């Protein structure tokens, strides 16, 4: 465990990419327990790659990702399963299983990982769905509800096992401002009431100001700034950060 007891995730000198191409180089940062941490940057800057490396979906080229003190990069077998149970993930599209109702979607991890009786699982799944505001829709199929509802249902599924950390990939992508604000409010309330740590990859400025405690800004595969969203906005460390927060078109920059 790192020296600071408040750290729940630590990324150390992470270099990652696919097929021999390096997309992220030498990334290091820490996420504190209970905060809403945001990974910011434009399209194609490596946000999703970083997130997918943090959840162990892709193997890193080098470096470490410590989740609760355990390195997910080299972990395998039961050790890896143990780390995976510490967090939940909401994918950009929601990734709900189309053949199952929302309740069955949320029940799936419970069936696999707990020994709760069926009635308890069903009740728990309904509770989780209610926490995200979908109590009445437990018997619906994902195709029968809207995109915003699917994302909320995906959050409920990610929370099924009461993980301490939730990773969200572009939660507001494709949502209208009202639905997006509702999702932000949900994230805030889960963070306050349940003490869940959030790691969110996004480029939605409204969400960043509304819920972000701390953020890093990625540009061309490296961290270019770190701090609270308001700090970053008021005191941008370079032109890219300034352009990002002021929604300005980026001027031609030296390659």
């Amino acid at each position, binding site marked *: 465990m790192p020296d600071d007891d408040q750290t*729940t995730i630590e990324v150390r000198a992470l270099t990652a990419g696919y097929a021999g191409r390096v997309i992220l180089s030498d990334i290091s940062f820490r996420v504190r*327990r*209970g905060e809403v941490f945001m990974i910011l940057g434009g399209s194609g800057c490596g946000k999703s790659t970083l997130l997918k490396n943090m959840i162990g979906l892709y193997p890193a080229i080098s470096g470490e990702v410590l989740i*609760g003190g355990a390195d997910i990069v080299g972990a395998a077998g039961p050790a890896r399963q143990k780390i995976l149970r*510490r967090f939940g993930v909401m994918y950009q599209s929601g990734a709900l*299983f*189309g*053949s199952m109702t929302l309740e069955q979607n949320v029940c799936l991890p*419970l069936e696999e*990982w*707990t*020994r*709760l*009786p069926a*009635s*308890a699982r069903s*009740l*728990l799944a*309904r*509770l*989780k769905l*209610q926490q995200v505001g979908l*109590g*009445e829709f*437990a*018997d*619906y*199929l*994902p*195709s*029968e509800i809207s995109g915003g509802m699917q994302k909320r249902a995906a959050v409920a599924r990610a*929370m*099924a*096992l*009461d*993980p*301490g*950390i939730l990773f969200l990939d572009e939660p507001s992508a494709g949502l209208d401002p009202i639905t997006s604000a509702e999702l932000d409010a949900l994230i805030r309330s889960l963070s306050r*009431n*349940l*003490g*869940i*740590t959030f790691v969110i990859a996004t480029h939605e400025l409204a969400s960043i100001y509304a819920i972000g405690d701390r953020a890093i800004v990625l540009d061309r595969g490296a961290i270019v700034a770190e701090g609270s969203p308001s700090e970053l906005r008021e005191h941008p460390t370079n032109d890219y950060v300034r352009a990002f927060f002021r929604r300005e078109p980026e001027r031609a920059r030296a390659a």
Partner: protein
Amino acid sequence: MPDKNPASPGVLRVREEGGSTVVELRGRLDDETVARCWREAVDAERAAAGGVVVDCSGVDFCGGAGFALLMAIEEAAKERGRAMRLEGLAPRFRALYDAIDRAKLEKPDVPHRGQGNWIADIGYSTAVRAGEWREETEFVGEVTAGLVALGRHPRRLRFREWWMIVEKTGTSALGIVALISFLTGMIIAFQAAVPMGQFGIDIFVVNLVGLAMVRELGPIMTAIILAGRSGSAFAAEIGTMKVNEEVAALTTMGLDPVRFLAVPRVLAGIAVTPVLTVYSMVMGVAGGVVVMMMRGFPLIALTNQLAGAVAPQDIFAGFIKSFFLGAAVAGVGCMRGLQTGAGATAVGDSTTRAVVAGILLVVIIDAVFAVVYYQLKF
């Protein structure tokens, strides 16, 4: 905090106090500890003579499973017409517990979909089936119209894409068609040679293999392989495009999905199947000939026998049939693809339906041709 390791295993204690049952919960209420004490806790409530008090003053973490347990005890108490009293739950958990909307947790009496009455079900399935019939008829018409239009303006065919489809459905299938046809020819020859040899007519095995492969098995085997390889691929490909709204994108760009997606594939099926069929006939007959040579017949005797048995019109009969088989198998694959609903399961369903319908059509078309040829004495 959710991150910490579970602390105490013994979470449940039940005691009687002043005429009511006290269910005392302690430590961490997570899925692991709750799973262990669920039945006991709910049973304690059911067995209680008087009221029930749930004492949570010793609880230091209450996860989703903990709330589910509290709800279950509350429900059980309500069924008995009593109220559960919850004591000592830390304020931050208490707030979450109080926020639970009991009314919305209950399963609805009428499911929002599914079981209606059986008359409605029959009506519904009939309407669905009739709609499909209509769609299928329209599809056949649209593809035919598309093919005719293409015949008039051949340049409208996107040749590079069409050629890719031809390569995938045709060239890549050569190996499997050769193997299956050759083995089929061999198997028929082996099976027939023994009983026919008992009557000293084993030279006629060549007639049998020749006619069977050329008139029936060559076209049928090829079409069935095509249904399994390419009909399924067409359905999955177009089905995924439908799910990803690519088909919708085509429509909004003013491009007819049938002309754009189905017509080139059907045309590829029509172009490729006859060639593969002839190839299959040759390989099947070769399989039979190899077996007969192994039984000691000279090649020249076999070829002479074959030339006498299989007339050019037999080859022609199989060849003509293969155009229709190819069009049907490719068409039904595309049609099932375009009928795909929403989600990953729907793509799987379309693929299955494409292969099943493809094979069924092959048999039906073959039967129709058998009758027609018989009437024409062809």
